[in-house]
């Protein structure tokens, strides 16, 4: 098992370097003039340009720039923006919010999705089954921002006023529930379908037949034998989803005005703060890759058959 972990980690490194290099090149190498718009309407003072170029290593060849940057990152130095704001500091304020949002989304989508999937998987056909199938289809098709806007409008003060939909600058968990639901809505639908398919497939398997033939109570046959096998693909999906939700949070944060990473990236792009953008995107890529590594390991934990290769 240890060798498997090591191998996956080693595979991760070139991919991480490749992806972050791509991002770095896109932000710093492609635009003609990284300094446009930084000093107001007029072009920047040459001495300013010289100073910043030195600081950001812009005179070095691209690869060298990149490695110096990664070197800095690994020591926790995310650099500063053109305005002298510490990127690292900004990230440390916004990141926990987005992370909380992501976790809430995953929990909501897991609970609702799995329950819906299990109920319909056990009992094919019937009203509940069709209801779930249709509504998941619908949720999968709705772009996240539409769901966000609609729910915000109709549940909030302007609509049926069921809840306060505004989110403060340091949001509590309660405030993040609706945005979390919106963020996870698409995946929730997918989780429900995945669970349902998995249960339907496993229901007819030989080991379930054996458990029944052993005279085990139905609750155990379903709750222990069936579920433990059926949930493997679902749980692994949830793991990867956590990684990808971070990236997708941008839209949700936009709709609900949440001060998370998404907002930070947006401002970074609007204001052409390359340092901010590369810093955040690199972090998110790392999170995504680590999440997929963890999922692979999780898979090995959940399914003993793949543990011993």
């Amino acid at each position, binding site marked *: 098992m240890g060798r498997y972990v090591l191998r996956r980690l080693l595979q991760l490194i070139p991919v991480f370097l490749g992806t972050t290099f791509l991002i770095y090149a896109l932000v710093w190498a492609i635009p003609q003039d990284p300094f446009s718009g930084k000093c107001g309407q007029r072009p920047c003072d040459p001495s300013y340009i010289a100073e910043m170029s030195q600081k950001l290593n812009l005179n070095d060849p691209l690869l060298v720039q990149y490695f110096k940057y990664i070197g800095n990152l690994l020591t926790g130095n995310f650099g500063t923006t053109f305005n002298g704001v510490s990127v690292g500091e900004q990230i440390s304020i916004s990141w926990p919010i987005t992370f909380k949002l992501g976790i809430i989304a995953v929990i909501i989508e897991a609970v609702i999705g799995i329950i819906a999937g299990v109920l319909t998987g056990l009992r094919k056909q019937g009203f509940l089954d069709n209801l779930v199938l249709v509504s998941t289809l619908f949720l999968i098709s709705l772009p996240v921002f539409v769901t966000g806007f609609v729910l915000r409008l109709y549940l909030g003060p302007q609509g049926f006023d069921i809840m306060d939909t505004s989110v403060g600058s340091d949001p509590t968990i309660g405030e993040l529930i609706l945005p979390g639901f919106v963020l996870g809505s698409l995946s929730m639908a997918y989780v429900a379908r995945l669970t349902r398919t998995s249960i339907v497939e496993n229901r007819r398997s030989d*080991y379930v037949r054996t458990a029944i*033939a052993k005279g085990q109570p139905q609750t155990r046959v379903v709750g222990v034998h069936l579920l433990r096998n059926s949930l493997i693909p679902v749980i692994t999906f949830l793991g990867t989803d956590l990684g990808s939700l971070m990236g997708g949070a941008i839209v949700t944060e936009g709709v609900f005005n949440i001060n998370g990473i998404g907002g930070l990236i947006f401002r970074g792009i609007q204001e052409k703060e390359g340092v901010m953008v590369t810093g955040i995107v690199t972090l998110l890529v790392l999170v995504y890759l680590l999440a997929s590594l963890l999922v692979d390991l999780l898979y090995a934990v959940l399914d*003993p058959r793949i543990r011993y290769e």
Partner: protein
Amino acid sequence: MTQPLLEVEDLHVEFRTHDGVAKVLNGVSYHVSAGETLAVLGESGSGKSVTAQTIMGILDMPPAFITNGSIKFRGEDLLKKSAEERREVRGEGIAMIFQDALSALNPVFTVGFQIEEQLKVRRGMSKADARKRAVELLDQVKIPNAKGRISDYPHQFSGGMRQRAMIAMSLALDPELLIADEPTTALDVTVQAQIMDLLAEIQSERDMGMILITHDLGVVADVADRISVMYAGRIVEHADVYELFRAPGHPYTESLLESLPRLDLKGQELKTIKGLPPSLTNIPPGCPFNPRCPRAFDRCVTEVPTVHNLGMGRTSRCHIAEEVVARG
């Protein structure tokens, strides 16, 4: 004579599907007593597994429907019992082992877990006691290093060892009757022999009744006391094992025996039974074997043969059963 442990009487089962109604069992009757082994012999589709599953109550109903018959265990008709009562019989009164242990055992739980589950959930044993008993059971089925292997997963065992583990699991609640559905079909020939020996030993130690479902005549010859031959959902012949081999009482059994390769008849063509078993949605009129029967004549196409009593518990469903027996 003591009452048989299990008595299946005139069992009729249908599968109702979009493509039609398949008459899977058409009047199956057999019985087993404690300490004896009944072999149920037949091709794929003959209904031997379905009968076993109906006895255990693990058929999917629908699309299966039991349209007639009774299954008496210890004198009581299981078909008249509640779902909960039937569940209690499983594992404890009647246990079943299956053909492919790799798919029949749950891949994500250890073998120990799956054995102990029976003891903890159904007998209320403590964890420690259950673990001890489970190791004992693995020992009884001759798995070396039982203590070490109790925490292994099914895929970590070899085919034969896995089958032994499944047998151990089935014995956990000390059942009175064991149904073995093709227990050796997926195994190598040498391992087959070992498993059959193990089953025979266990049976005599516990005075268990055993129903051995198989299509393999070789396995039957070694282990069975009596044989019921099935074809198209019907028992076509019941006999004591020696009698069956000495003088088959039904053309189907005859053909089966003739198709066995023999070492003393070298250089000759292997005999086969021409044709295919009938589709169960469309069973031919008269005797279902008539399209393939070398002895078929006009009555076979029009009349379903009744059960002919050939004396000493032997029966056969053939119009000319007496003739067939005499020939042997």
